[in-house]
């Protein structure tokens, strides 16, 4: 059966697909901290945790050099399935393996800052969180308008894809890892956080023994502080005057609907109402969001929890203050034969 199958049967089990692709050495991921869920999945099915470095397009998947490719539901998966500009138009000829269903989900987009900044500017943090959450709530209620707003703020992603993305991101914000609806946007779910931390401890491999040791001792309290979110979103919230009014937030990636909540909050004036003058700094550059926040280039950042854990193991002292995406958006996609 290992005769280099390229397409899998519609009914193939997850195990069949994973084992076959891994045996051929054709599982892809972008690496750079995005790989732990994939490694956890590979381990779950008894496979070695090596993978191919996947480029930022899906060409490798398209030309079969990668059989089981990583994709974010809101981004690459849309390109694979759809026919709009940049799309590969596979439609229903592909199936996915969902990390949430496999029990290896790790939490992704959050809002974080440094512990020191939060302690020094609690009102700013609260004001920022309240306004951002409001932005996300509006965006999820009106994904089409949100997509338009993001496009207006300089996104170059085609508006069709933007719209698709808004719809998928909405799902990640409104559903948790178990598939249950989320009650409070941005709330930190400690159970999911703990699962993320546990997986991180297993799969984040640090060369530096000091950092590796520190990673193992990390607890939830070292990586997240719910207090700002809780007070900011309490029904009777009274937000004091922000200590610092000019603040910036660095996104994890290029401007796109993945970050629509912040653009909506900016566009609708929620930040201004909270007394903040917010600059949104696009990501995707070589200075990662953790470094940018740590060095004080920006005040807030959006990152994946696993990246934050690694950074704190390294000694950065970052603190998550809200968890926007409540479930993992990572899937593995594979082609099926008709």
């Amino acid at each position: 059966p290992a005769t280099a199958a390229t397409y899998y049967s519609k009914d193939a089990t997850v195990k069949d697909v994973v084992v076959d692709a891994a045996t051929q050495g054709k599982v892809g991921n972008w690496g750079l901290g995005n790989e732990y869920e994939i490694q956890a999945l590979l381990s779950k099915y008894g496979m070695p945790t090596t993978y191919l470095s996947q480029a930022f397009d899906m060409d490798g998947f398209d030309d079969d050099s990668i059989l089981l490719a990583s994709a974010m539901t809101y981004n690459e998966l849309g390109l694979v399935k759809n026919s709009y500009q940049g799309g590969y138009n596979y439609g229903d000829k592909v199936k996915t393996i969902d990390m949430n269903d496999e029990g290896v989900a790790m939490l992704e987009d959050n809002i974080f800052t440094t512990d020191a900044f939060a302690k020094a500017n609690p009102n700013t943090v609260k004001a920022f969180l309240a306004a951002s959450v409001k932005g996300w709530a509006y965006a999820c209620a009106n994904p089409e308008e949100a997509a338009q707003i993001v496009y207006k703020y300089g996104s170059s992603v085609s508006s069709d894809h933007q719209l698709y993305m808004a719809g998928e991101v909405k799902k990640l914000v409104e559903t948790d890892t178990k598939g249950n609806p989320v009650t409070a946007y941005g709330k930190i779910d400690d159970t999911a956080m703990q699962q993320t931390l546990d997986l991180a401890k297993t799969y984040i491999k640090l060369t530096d023994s000091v950092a590796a040791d520190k990673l193992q001792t990390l607890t939830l309290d070292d990586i997240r502080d719910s207090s700002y979110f809780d007070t900011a979103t309490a029904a009777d919230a009274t937000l004091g005057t922000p200590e610092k009014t000019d603040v910036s937030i660095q996104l994890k990636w290029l401007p796109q609907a993945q970050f629509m909540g912040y653009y909506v909050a900016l566009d609708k004036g929620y930040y201004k109402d909270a007394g903040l003058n917010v600059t949104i700094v696009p990501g995707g550059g070589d200075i990662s969001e953790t470094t940018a926040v740590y060095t004080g280039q920006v005040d807030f950042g959006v990152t994946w929890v696993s990246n934050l854990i690694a950074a704190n193991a390294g000694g950065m002292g970052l603190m998550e203050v809200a968890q926007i995406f409540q479930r993992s958006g990572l899937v593995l996609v594979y082609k099926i034969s008709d």
Partner: protein
Amino acid sequence: MKPVNWKKIFASSIWVTVAWVVGLIVVWEIGATIVAGVKRTPENVLPHLYQIIGSVFSTQKVNSSQTAIQLVLSNAWVTLARAGIGFMLGASIGFLLALLMSRFVAVEKMLFPYLMIIQMIPILGMAPIVLAITKNIDKSRIVIAAILTFYPVATNTLSGFKAVEKEKRELMYSYAASRFDIYRKLLIPYCIPYLFTGLKIAAPMAITASILVDTLQGGGGLGCMMSQSLKHAMTIYVFWQIVFLSAIIGILSYQLMVWLEKLVSPYPKELKNGGTGKAKELEA
């Protein structure tokens, strides 16, 4: 009416450049045709040139307000400005370092290996430190671009200083000429061809460096657009346009150096290329 002198027209160096460009186009198109036959998204690998040119004239907007070429050109200025400043800064630093190293052997021995090492620290590692010093992302971008370009200028100029014939130095020495005069009257005129060899390498490199530092953080610049395009956040043709634009700017910057050299070189024209008299003609 004078007969058209075809020989002369074809001897003109413009035709040579044209021929090279045509040759390259042919090679490219052969490649593109092959790629188009085997890949499903050939534009990610090697599109046809007409597709790239088509994308230049395409009126389709890539974001809310600009077409691809508008986006590229509007971002080119930031990058060019940084390249220009970075290059001038880098070339000056390189030249000064070469002066310093030629003046003090100890400095050369101490610094040279480390100058080379600085070249090898990836900007990823360098950026946070430079950022810490400059406290400003844009300043640090210029500094890094300068760091990435100074070295060819420094090495080439230094080797020019070292290539000065012993007798020429001794003549100066016998006049007990001051250091300043030795540099002004002998070493600097002598090393100008060497300096320009360095500048010719560094000028296009400055463009590269500038595009590279764009990618440090979001914001404007060709590098930013390029990586967005590469990450498929916008049409891939933006990437190809930038590839061509940077190549064209690179050629222009090289030519600018060639032209500048002609302008400032103290050497009489015939002296270029060594040899004398007839031998030069025989070579042609």
